[in-house]
């Protein structure tokens, strides 16, 4: 729901060309989260709330340092804590900042039927435009990371905007600004990828984390939020980070083959009716008086469904 002026390249549920596309080739932005230097201080959580104007949420202690069990429609940024017994490294306290991953192939956008409710900017940011949101919640099923959340009061869906309003005027996202340890980085995708790979190499070569790696899942054609993990073979240990996220097959089926099939069926139906008309002519209905009268032409019909 931003008022940003960045270039839009895709629009949900929108037929025809995207206005202004191809006019201004922005670089692709990326947030790098190095979980190996995260200290779980939650400065990013508070910065997110404050920048986006959200306030106090009632929480309760749940045998964890984690603020709440899951992100909510007005709490977009949550560090997930996990006390994990690693077979090689012993006890680890894994802390992963969870928020929208800004997928290159966004399941939310794919699933959304509302024209203009979800856009993907040229810089990679996926942004929800709540004024166009119809509150159907399809984006929630489309997301492999369980990120979009429904607000029962606004009856619309909300999520992290990657601070598109800040980024489009040359600032870093609020979470990046607040991070005290430099565990969060922001820049272009190639830069962040390189930084992440360098760190992962260091972790493998120097720190003894032989499975350290970068999380930039190919199932959604990469993300604009990437992680460095101590052990990239155990992504689920990081607060349920999916190993191989994909857009759900139901959404894929519905939005691609089924939609195509549906469109075909509709066009074929209309075409069939037309052929039928040519071949058999207008349908004759017997009147009460036994006389045959032609059905009225569409232009003459007063209202759809007006007849029994």
């Amino acid at each position: 729901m931003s008022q940003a002026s960045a270039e839009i390249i895709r629009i949900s549920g929108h037929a025809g060309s995207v206005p202004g596309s191809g006019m201004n080739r922005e670089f692709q932005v990326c947030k790098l989260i190095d979980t190996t230097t995260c200290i779980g201080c939650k400065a990013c959580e508070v910065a997110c709330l404050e920048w986006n104007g959200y306030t106090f949420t009632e929480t309760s202690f749940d045998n964890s340092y984690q603020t709440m069990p899951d992100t909510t429609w007005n709490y977009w940024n949550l560090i997930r804590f996990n006390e994990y017994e690693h077979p090689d490294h012993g006890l680890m306290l894994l802390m992963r900042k969870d928020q929208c991953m800004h997928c290159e192939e966004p399941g939310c956008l794919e699933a959304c039927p509302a024209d203009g409710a979800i856009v993907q900017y040229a810089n990679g940011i996926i942004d929800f435009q709540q004024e166009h949101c119809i509150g159907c919640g399809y984006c929630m099923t489309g997301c492999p990371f369980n990120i979009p959340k429904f607000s029962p009061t606004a009856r619309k869906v909300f999520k992290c905007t990657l601070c598109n309003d800040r980024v489009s005027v040359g600032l870093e996202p609020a979470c990046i600004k607040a991070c005290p340890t430099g565990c969060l980085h922001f820049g272009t995708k190639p830069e962040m990828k390189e930084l992440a790979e360098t760190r992962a190499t260091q972790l493998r070569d120097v720190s003894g984390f032989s499975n350290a790696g970068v999380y930039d899942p190919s199932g959604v054609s990469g993300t604009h939020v990437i992680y460095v993990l101590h052990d990239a073979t155990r992504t689920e240990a990081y607060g349920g980070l999916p190993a191989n996220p994909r857009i759900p097959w139901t959404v894929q089926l519905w939005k691609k083959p089924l939609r195509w099939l549906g469109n075909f069926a509709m066009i074929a139906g209309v075409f069939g009716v037309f052929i039928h008309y040519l071949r058999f002519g207008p349908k004759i209905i017997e009147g009460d008086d036994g006389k045959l009268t032609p059905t009225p032409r569409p232009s003459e019909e007063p209202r759809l469904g007006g007849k029994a």
Partner: protein
Amino acid sequence: MTNGWVDIKNTDMMLIMGGNPAENHPCGFKWAMEAKRNRNAKLISVDPRFTRTSATADLFLQIRAGTDIAFLGGLIRYAIENNRIAKEYLVNYTNAAFIVKEGFKLPEDGLYSGFDSSSSSYDKSTWNYQEGGDFSGQPHAAAPPAHAAPADAAHPATPAPPPLLPPNVAYDLTLQHPRCVFQLMRQQYSRYTPELVERITGIPKEQYIKAIDLFTSIRKDGDMKKAGTIIYAVGWTQHTFGTQIIRTAAMIQLLLGNVGRAGGGVNALRGHSNIQGATDMGGLADGMPGYLKVPTPADTDLAAYLKRTTPTASKPVPWDSFNYYSNTPKFMVSLLKALYGDAATKENGFAYDYFPKVDRDYSWTHIWDDMYNGKVKGMMAFGMNGVMIGPDTNKNINALKKADWLVVGEIYPDETSEFWKAPGITADEQKTINTTVYRLPCAGFAEKDGSMTNSARWVTWKYAAVPPPGQARLDQDILAQIFLRVRDLYKKEGGKFPDPILNASWAYADAEHPSLSQVAMELNGRTLADQKDDTTGQVVLKAGQQLPGFAALKDDGTTVCGNWIYSGMWTEAGPQCQRRGTEDPSGLGVFPNWSWSWPANRRILYNRASCNPDGKPWDPERKQVWWNEAAGKWAGADVPDFKPDSHPKDHMGPFIMNPEGVGRLFAPIGVLADGPFPEHYEPFESPTKNLLHPDQSTNPLVKAFKTPYDKLGTPEEYSIVCTTYRLTEHYHYWTKNNPMNVQLIPEPFVEIPVELAEEKGIRGTDMIKVISARGTYIAKAFVTKRLKPMMIDGKKVYQIGLPIHQGFRGIPEDEGRDARTPANLLTPAVVDPNAHTPESKGFLVKVEKA
């Protein structure tokens, strides 16, 4: 900190122990992460719990709270045995080669030589250096071993006047003399074997060796290139032997040649933005501004005080010692001039008689004990929440019940100003409490200007963002009102001794509202007369000008200075503490033009020791200071902490604040109350006897208080070791007033091991009671794998921990939560004999389901 926050990025090795910087100093912790990322530095975290610092560590060891000296002593032993020591540094920059007096005895039985059991104190005359010359390479077979008490060790019934350090110290540069400091130290810690360390600390031997091997690996084969740092916080100070834990760390850093070096040092992380400033200004009962010693009744006049407190050099004859504290008279006289202005004259000893003399211990726990015993009738509490701070909160609340009055200056209603509403005090009892409480609305941190001194000694000016709301006033305005009205009363009514109040200097432009800029200028100091250069006779400072630094101070009453170490913060060139230059030519994070650092804008203390004896940096890639032969001067990226023109050939010691000129592995007479070398003692409440000397389990110098609240528990009844700590989500007792923080950690909890939870049938989020001999704390259980049961001398011991933040007073968002008992209900008021810090880390409790 000997070094600074930014300097941590220069390190190769970090031992973080007694502190949890990731959670409690998150902004500073970025430099630890930088060192890891940019230098492949290693981080070892030793803590009673696996913390968020441990989460980023290369190695984590779970230690039993209060056994740090055993851990560190074993490290000293390992470093010596494996030649992982800085030999050249050790010989030239420490007192390793100094020979200790005959008659000195190591504490094989838990006691050093000179212990008097009737007064629980030491006669320290044997804790001294032997007088004499060079013993290097001389035979010394006849010297008696230091473990056996010598026959003539019997001390006189009446203590002799305090002995002085000899000017001419006997030494053995080969470090072979059996009574040289190095050999005594080796002997002392030879007892701290990995096996013993395991039995005491609960750290399995293999893990322990891995850790100490990793830490000492920076000095493999004595190579001096690398540097390691030791980082700590109040987890080391809050013990009955806290000062000695820090001493052990200092000894390790001297032994490994890490002091004075970029990426090295002994680094205390202070828990508030300006706690360093408070200490610098004499915030402790036994100190004055700039760490001058407080006068006692025995110091009958200024001359006597200066004689006692001004040291004379004590060193091997061929060496040189700057002995900077020989300037003590200049510091003291300038301070008296700042306090008493024109009333301080040469004739009246600069009004020394006005200054209060400290006749006994007035430290924190004594104030409460005195209030409980009716000796202290009232208290002014500004910027601190005494009830929550504890220790032994119940005792403090009961002391406040007996007080006549209490003034609290705060921005929120707090537990101290509402002590009479503490849990357990009934409405009927509340009616019987007659303490008058005055609550003064004060200004918050963003509403006042002034300087803050951080852990790195950087004095940084801050500006007020907004004015104080409503009737809230600035602290200095409140204090000015009190002072001016008390002075008026003295003027009108007289008194026993009104002079110190009537003559106190109050030379601020607006007496009712003193400006903190003027206070800062007063701290920096100015000259009252024209000052001339000693050699040229030229006037270098005109009367009335701000001093350029403490080197300009005089002992003749012609300079005024409120705090000698702050001299230089606000000079004729302007407020140095307001500088914001971001240039860092050396790349070492010195930032010489950013704010101002005491002393003399030096960023790393003792930086002469970053060079070898010839004046060349140990590591050419981290050049801090060096001897410039052509200029005949010390130069550097940092301000040299040394006499600028002392040629390396003069062999002046780099530790210029010590009369020896060298670092003290052995702390001679007068430095510490409880021993020249640290020795492992058990906490006052411990699950085990001291395995080194069961008959002397605890620190022999600790004296217990005697009120009914001063109870200690036995391991038979209270078998669980408990420690307290802070969380990153909260700031002491304030942020429970801020909804943003409250939602992050909404409720108090107690971290307990999974195994203990199973044993007691406790599940996570169940309400539990933690009971000590002094009180009961109620909160939800946090069942965690991050605390494991430990084997202490073959016995299974559980360790638990609880955060200190929540109390019985907060905001609506915070209310309606269960149990609001202060954590310090549990802690004992037993204190370290040197720093008087209570033992809040490591006491005994039992756990029950609530």
